[in-house]
């Protein structure tokens, strides 16, 4: 049962399929916003299948981590998906402290990117890795602060009881502190997903795909899957933390679509920031908003 959960239903396969669809929706909506037609619905699946059939080149100077890194990200995210999905389906299945565990597991993709890029022995990849590292340090602080708001409001670090608390007392985002924390978490998630204003680590025009520059073939396909799964996981995590009142499949997918559309709109209306601007942004305004939210939550607002 655990293996089925991990590999098929709330875990690996399910999240990858939903994530690839969401990635297609991102490309299609972006295309429509620019008055283009956009790719067909199977585009992201086709990309992955094609990459799986291509030659995978391993640089001579690359370490073992070069091939291990994509799988570290994949396994970590699949585990996070399984825990999240199981807690949504039956809140009793979650255990004390799984919120903390998921917060750690959600850092895994960024960590995998850094490890893989550092192991690939490419100067541009190392620039990308250092940017990814700085960005992760920048967004993790406000992200964890906004998770602390939820912990304070629900008085628990267990996803199941956070969900049942919201079923009884209403969604966290309905209160002032929850709303502020949600805004901060939304912006952090944009950076976690590596979408437009914060796609600093793989700036295509600037450092030529940065962290992913040396990856080809199936290794690149695995990284594409990791990105797709992240696109599924992060909005679901935000829904669980802030909009957990109604978690029937219909409401879940409506909330998912709404949050994901916000990401796409932010992505299409903002130019890329420099890494120093991004760090100043996250440690300045975003952290301030998250701190205010923590204080308000402690006051019970």
């Amino acid at each position, binding site marked *: 049962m655990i293996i089925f959960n991990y590999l098929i239903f709330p875990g690996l396969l399910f999240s990858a399929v939903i994530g690839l669809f969401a990635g297609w929706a991102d*490309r299609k909506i972006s*295309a429509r916003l*620019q*008055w*283009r*037609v*956009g*790719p*067909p619905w*199977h*585009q992201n699946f*086709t*990309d992955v*299948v*094609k990459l799986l*059939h*291509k*030659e*995978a*080149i391993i640089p001579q100077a690359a370490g073992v981590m070069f091939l291990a890194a994509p799988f570290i990200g994949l396994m970590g995210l699949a585990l996070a998906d399984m825990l999240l999905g199981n807690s949504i389906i039956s809140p009793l299945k979650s255990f004390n402290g799984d919120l903390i565990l998921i917060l750690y597991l959600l850092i895994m993709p960024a960590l995998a990117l850094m490890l893989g890029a550092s192991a690939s022995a490419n100067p541009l990849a190392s620039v990308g890795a250092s940017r990814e590292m700085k960005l992760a340090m920048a967004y993790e602080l406000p992200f964890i602060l906004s998770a602390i708001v939820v912990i304070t409001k629900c008085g628990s670090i267990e996803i199941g009881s956070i969900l049942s608390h919201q079923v009884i007392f209403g969604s966290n985002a309905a209160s002032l502190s929850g709303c502020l924390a949600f805004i901060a978490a939304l912006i952090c998630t944009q950076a976690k997903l590596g979408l437009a204003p914060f796609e600093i680590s793989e700036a*295509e*025009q600037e450092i*030529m*795909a940065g962290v*992913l*520059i*040396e*990856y*080809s*073939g199936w290794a*690149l396909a695995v990284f594409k899957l990791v990105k797709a799964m992240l696109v599924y996981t992060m909005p679901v995590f935000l829904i669980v933390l802030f909009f957990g009142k109604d978690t029937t499949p219909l409401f879940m997918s409506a909330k998912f679509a709404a949050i994901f559309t916000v990401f796409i709109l932010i992505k299409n209306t903002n130019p890329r920031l420099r890494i120093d601007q991004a760090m100043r942004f996250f440690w300045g305004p975003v952290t301030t908003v998250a701190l205010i939210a923590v204080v308000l939550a402690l006051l019970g607002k």
Partner: protein
Amino acid sequence: MDLKTKALIKSIWVFHVSAGSCNNCDIEILDCFTPKFDIERFGIQLVGSVRHADALLITGAMNRKSVPRMKKIYEQAPKPCIVIAVGQCALSRHMFRFSYNVRDSLDAILPVDLYIPGCPPKPQALIAGIVKLVTKLRETKR
């Protein structure tokens, strides 16, 4: 047609190499991604790294400086890799035919799969070339 070819012709990722062109062909290539032509609807994308590429789009006459670099880039690309020569210079050296530093045309250096003539080729010509390429890939069943 097997899955491999089917997936390849639906998602050709292009790496754009300029071997010293006058920039006209490069502008026309970028035009293909604008709203009017939009070749992303066929799954074609410009990628930043050669390692992600399925096709090399080469513009410009091959001068002595760019020949070794071009060979290196071709070696760096994962196979199967399609080579597309864009513009008259890449095809036949055009006005640099008798120049002292342009010795060979592109097909003497790399195995070229598709030639798109024009100085510069219009976006319509580029799209027509891509259609020819897709038909060729369908037939060769590689």
